[in-house]
């Protein structure tokens, strides 16, 4: 059931996350209303939207960190509302999350951070635990020296990489990335995009990426979903976005910065 496919063979569109009619709000404010979204297995979905439109809220709703008022969310074919706590735990090991600030445990070294989910879910020998953690550290492009450093000793880019290594600790099927390239310099951001694309190909990941970075959208995303007015305004490959008539999408994808990216030959 869990076969891997590279991203370019999306013919058999296997839905891995299915959100229907989702409504989320806080107090008087309704942030998402009537939102439908499908994420297909093996794709990199870029999720865009203006600040405060609820991109992070949707991510958090899928992850179960904020309650939703209505609607259903299915992940890997399982309705999140109908799961027992044990089933939920089983499901949670199939996803990894890269939080915007990394959210590394500040009291643990990078290696220990990566080992936290491994220790919790897997029964590994100490040797394998160390080797796998080091392997993940190398896979995300960190220097092995970083393994024994505390998060407070890392630069912003290193924190993102370490957090990605932790998100990948259990070889998840879905990875949620919350603004993975924010706070990185353009070169670092480009490298990070390449890294995500490479890992996606080698590990057969499905990537759900909240981003503002037009470069990322052009270079690595298979599909883009744009959020506005509480629902999905448009979804599809970048060409669909560029053709959309919606005013927000027009200014987003045809603004000065977007033109610069396009001119750069993305």
């Amino acid at each position, binding site marked *: 059931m*869990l*076969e*891997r496919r*590279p991203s370019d063979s999306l013919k058999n569109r296997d839905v891995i996350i299915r959100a229907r009619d989702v409504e989320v709000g806080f107090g008087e404010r309704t942030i998402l209303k009537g939102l439908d979204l499908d994420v297909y297995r093996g794709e990199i979905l870029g999720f865009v939207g203006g600040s405060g439109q609820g991109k992070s809220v949707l991510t958090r709703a899928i992850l179960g960190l904020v309650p939703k008022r209505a609607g259903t969310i299915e992940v890997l074919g399982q309705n999140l509302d109908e799961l027992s706590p044990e089933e939920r735990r089983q499901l949670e*090991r199939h996803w990894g999350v890269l939080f915007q600030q990394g959210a590394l445990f*500040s*009291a643990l070294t990078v290696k220990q951070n990566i080992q936290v989910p*491994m220790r919790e*879910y*897997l*029964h*590994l*020998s100490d040797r*394998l635990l*160390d*080797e*796998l953690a*080091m*392997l*993940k550290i*190398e*896979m995300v492009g960190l220097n*092995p020296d970083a*393994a*024994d450093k*505390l*998060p*407070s*000793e890392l630069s912003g880019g290193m924190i993102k990489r370490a957090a990605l290594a932790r998100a*990948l600790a*259990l*070889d998840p099927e879905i990875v949620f990335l919350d603004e993975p390239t924010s706070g990185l310099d353009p070169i670092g951001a480009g490298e990070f995009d390449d890294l995500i694309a490479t890992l996606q*190909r*080698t*590990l*057969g990941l499905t990537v759900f990426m909240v981003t503002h970075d037009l470069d990322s959208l052009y270079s690595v995303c298979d599909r883009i979903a744009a959020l506005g007015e509480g629902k999905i305004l448009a979804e599809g490959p970048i060409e669909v976005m560029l053709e959309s008539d919606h005013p927000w999408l027009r200014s987003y994808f045809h603004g000065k910065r977007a033109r610069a990216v396009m001119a750069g030959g993305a």
Partner: protein
Amino acid sequence: MIVAQSTLAREPEVTIDRAGGAMTIRLAGPWTAPHAQRVEALVDEIAAEADAFPVALDLSGVERLDTLGAWTLNRTRHELSAKGQVDFANASPEQKILLDEAAYRDFQGEPKPRHSRAVDFLVDVGQSVAGAGRDMVGGVGFLGELISALIRVVVHPRRFRGTAVINQLEQIAYRGVPIIVLISFLVGCIVSQQGIFQLVKFGATPFVIDLIGILVLRELGVLLTSIMVAGRSGSAFTAEIGSMKMREEIDALRVMGLDPIEVLIVPRIMALVIGLPLLTFIASIAALVGGGLTTWVYGDISPDIFLNRLRAAVSLNTFLVGIIKAPFMALVIGIIATLEGLAVEGSAESLGRHVTSSVVKAIFMVIVLDGLFAMFFAAINY
């Protein structure tokens, strides 16, 4: 060696096939992290069984492979490479990419130089002594900075942050009144009740009023208040300043040309020095009221007699002994709390540790200081 179908998926399996001089090891099932224990056992088995080279590791039956599976296979291959050649066969393109990505590499730094316990212990002791020395120098240095900041504020009254002081006073004193009143009242009741029970045996019940009056005004009021303030406000200071330091807010103040000591610490310590005597007064009154009520109920001494007797028992200096101590207690609590706050490093754990040690050190120092004052006042017969 077919393993029974499990509920989730099949277990990883290995079949060993010896044909002629070569050896084919067929792998099957999911070679993934959830089956880690079995995968580890199987690769050990492969390593033990492999005796006829070249060995081919046939991956055609593997339904899933992840980094754990790929890594353990690569490692086994590397370990066997000394004995002979081992190759992967029939790997799908995706599996090949993964096997390349998880290719064997030697992670250095495993064999750390291990010192003996004795050396580690000595190093530990040395570091703590050096650390204590640094703490002491830091504390004295901080006291100096604080005093110079206070002098600056006195010389340039425009730099005095009245609003901040009032705000802190509200937090420390005003909002602390209910709990401090309640606790002092109860302690007053308890002490006087026990006093009555003991003194009644000698027919000296009225002396409980002397006991309460002197004890509360000289010692209990200020001590209870200081301990409560150390727990309530000292911990809050440490946490506030510590988290500001963690999030570079202190650095932000500094680069704006603002002195963090002047902006953050002087108002807090001033508020403590003003607030603690006020709270001490309120606490003492509450304890006296509690004592008075109890003597009325248990000792049949009416409030009139209680007040008369109290006036005879205590004098102004009894009250002053208590109140003089309060600002010193405040200074000690404030300095310890801010020093601990500034010592916080990047992690949440460090913040927790420093908040705890701020409260523990402050309470300890308050009691020590009270003892020193007791000796001092006894020596000058005050």
